[in-house]
């Protein structure tokens, strides 16, 4: 998709004009390409106390040069700031200021990962304040960094140490180019995920919401396929032509099916079981919009959006858990939306369905854990697709710039997040919604 403004601003003349006029200056993000997964450099600065030794050992093992103190005029590809030992707000200060010293040395497209602990209702107020404070700090740093750099947080549940295998997978994702459009987001990691049996390679159905093969659904199919999956693709018969095209591109199987049919989950399980074997990964990319102000909303608009975007997923997940066709460590990923977090004028039905997804995955985590699996959601912000290309120009331009990275994401940014949640690396991540929005100001 074309973002002509961003292209212009990245020319020498455009950059000068933007600087003079105080216009947004989005940097072209460094995105994943095969063989270009790495950080912009090898130098990683590790700040904080607890667990940093094992963390440093893990980074060294991945070929990084690890530094423990910010040096004046030094350049870092990434900074990992460990706040997991903070018991009181006063404990944040030293590592926070050290991180501040390091910011000027952060390379373009650099990565900052802040390590903290998730809050719990039983926490002492002082401890709770410290833990919550880490997230606010992380979000502010995410706003502050420039030149395509990002800052995110891993909140390690009690028992998950910064250098543990459970933390290593999510840390690697946030440090890589695969998370180029993920910014200002906290992700909680629980214990035990990494020790689960390794799936034989992800495969699973995907419900495509976009037509024409250039949308988020097609990107997810391509990503899972490149990651080794054999893919069963599901869409309504009316969208069969585009479905077949993407299926044939990746050597997958196309299943024309109305996912709101009462037995949709069972039929998917049946076809997947016969053709591809157990389902290791299932991606719900359901998405229709029937926008209308609530004051003018009719029954058909409301009902169809809830049925396709939400009720179908609940029913399919239930039927698949009962089907016996799931692999040993199934990974389910649903597509939510920042509209489901912030709401959106004229999208009460859509926002209800997408907020519902966020609630659904949180509530289903326990059930999927019993099946050895995980269930999560990805909430895209403004993504450059055929759908957003059809928006009115001014609305689109505002939506596109309203995030810390001052640009829209691309379908593969969403697909990368889905691919991460579908992978072995995310075994400790469940019940959560990961935003892929460039730190959108909407619902932040």
């Amino acid at each position: 998709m074309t973002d002509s403004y961003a292209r212009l601003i990245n020319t020498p003349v455009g950059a000068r004009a933007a600087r003079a006029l105080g216009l947004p200056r989005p940097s072209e993000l460094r995105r994943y390409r095969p063989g270009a997964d790495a950080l912009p450099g090898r130098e990683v600065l590790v700040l904080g106390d607890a667990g940093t030794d094992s963390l440093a050992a893990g980074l060294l093992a991945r070929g990084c040069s690890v530094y423990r103190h910010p040096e004046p005029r030094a350049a870092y590809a990434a900074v990992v700031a460990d706040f997991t030992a903070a018991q009181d707000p006063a404990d944040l200060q030293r590592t926070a200021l050290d991180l501040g010293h390091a910011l000027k040395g952060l390379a373009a497209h650099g990565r900052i990962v802040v390590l903290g602990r998730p809050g719990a209702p039983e926490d002492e107020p002082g401890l709770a304040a410290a833990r919550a404070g880490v997230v606010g700090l992380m979000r502010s740093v995410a706003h502050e960094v420039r030149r395509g750099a990002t800052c995110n947080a891993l909140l390690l549940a009690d028992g998950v140490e910064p250098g543990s295998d459970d933390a290593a997978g999510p840390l690697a994702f946030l440090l890589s180019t695969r998370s180029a459009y993920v910014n200002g987001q906290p992700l909680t990691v629980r214990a035990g995920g990494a020790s689960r049996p390794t799936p034989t390679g992800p495969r699973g159905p995907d419900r495509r919401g976009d037509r024409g093969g250039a949308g988020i659904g097609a990107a997810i199919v391509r990503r899972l396929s490149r990651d080794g999956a054999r893919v069963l693709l599901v869409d309504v018969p009316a969208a069969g032509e585009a479905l077949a095209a993407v299926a044939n591109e990746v050597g997958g199987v196309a299943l024309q099916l109305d996912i709101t049919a009462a037995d949709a989950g069972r039929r998917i399980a049946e076809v997947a079981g016969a053709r591809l074997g157990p389902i290791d990964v299932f991606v719900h990319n359901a998405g229709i919009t029937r926008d209308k102000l609530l004051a003018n909303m009719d029954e058909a608009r409301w009902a169809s959006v809830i049925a396709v975007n939400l009720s179908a997923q609940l029913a399919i997940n239930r039927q698949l858990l009962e089907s016996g066709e799931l692999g040993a460590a199934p990974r389910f990923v649903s597509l939510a939306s920042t509209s489901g977090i912030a709401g959106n004028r004229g999208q009460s039905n859509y926002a209800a369905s997408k907020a519902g997804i966020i609630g659904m995955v949180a509530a289903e985590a326990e059930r999927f854990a019993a099946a050895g699996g995980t269930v999560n959601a990805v909430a895209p912000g403004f993504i450059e697709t055929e759908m957003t290309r059809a928006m009115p120009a001014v609305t689109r331009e505002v939506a596109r710039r309203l995030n810390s990275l001052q640009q829209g994401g691309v379908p593969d940014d969403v697909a990368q997040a889905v691919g991460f949640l579908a992978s072995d690396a995310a075994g400790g991540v469940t019940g959560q919604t990961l935003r892929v929005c460039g730190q959108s100001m909407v619902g932040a």
Partner: protein
Amino acid sequence: MPDAYVLGGNRIPFARSHGAYAQIGNREMLTAAIDGLVARYGLAHQEVGEVAAGAVLKHSRDFNLTREAVLGSALAPTTPAYDVQQACATGMEAVWGLSNKIRLGQLDSAIAGGADTASDAPIVVSEGLRRRILELARARSLPQRLAAAVKVRPGDLKPQAPDTAEPRTGLSMGEHQAVTTAAWGIDRTAQDELALASHRGLADAYDRGFFDDLVTGFRGLARDGNLRPDTSLEKLGKLAPVFGRSLQEEASMTAGNSTPLTDGAATVLLGSPDWAAEHGLTPLARVVDAQVAAVDFVTGEEGLLMAPVYAVSRLLDRLDLGFADIDYFEIHEAFAATVLCALAAWESEEFCRERLGREAPLGAVDRSKLNVNGSSLAAGHPFAATGGRIVATLAKQLHAASAESGRPQRGLISVCAAGGLGVAMVLEADAAAG
């Protein structure tokens, strides 16, 4: 000898000519139908034993239509292909020939199909102009060239479009059928009732999702463009007759009870049980046997579209079957009257004795078993695509009915074709046997 099974099918929705596919040719439609089949059965980049398909209205540039479609499809480019053409029985002949190769162990898998477009029909130069152009090509000197060029007459410049007239009689297919219709005394209401049943059957099949794994949308069309779910006897009854108006008997064949010119393409996946098992596919129905017949319509000895009546009789004799052994009948609705004439002939003691050489008539076809998911009157009839449509539809119906009843199910197909040709085929499904 291994058996040959229908494993599935795919077609694009059929469109009325000069409608949704007006700008699209046979090759593109056939490629789309193959691609949908490949996607449904996960065969992308794989080699299938052989692909056979054809078109009735065919451009000379499409001399290798099927192979070109394969090369443009998601199948491995090493998949062989050949063209077939037997008028409206093209699809049947493709299924039949490939099934035989599978039964002989020469192939383990195959795709049969056909495509036709009346919108993108070839238009040729007149015979006179063609001769002059060839003469010009042979000319070696300027005087010879000039001599050839001046022979072109203004009348030679008029292009010729194909029509459905029989070359030997000059009568259109509809006019031929009108004669047969009158001879058998088929009335208007019976024809309209058959057309109505076809539309209702097809619409109902779409509504219950029967075609979800038989049809892939194409160019914005998700259902057959000719389908009129809300038609009625009253609406059909208002249409003026279009064929047989010069006959003594009252003309009864209208645009409602005749198939319209249609664009479309259809494919059928065939394979041996072993190949099906290797690909995780369920064999739907076994291709049991088939029979072709031809009639002498030129002298008026028999009606143009009556050949399948003979083919069915011979096929059932060989298989030692009667109508009571058939669970589903698929009789191609070239015209409603074609079907009704065939039914009447099979019920006629005299016809069965004199023409078919049977001691007793074949009997009545139970109408509740006839074209239950609609047929050509509702779906339309892109000539070479009709056979594939019928075979895949019947195979799915037989398998579903067998799974539901727990008993084997047998189906009979009858397709008439230009030139006084007709093909019959028997399919059998036994869901319990896999």
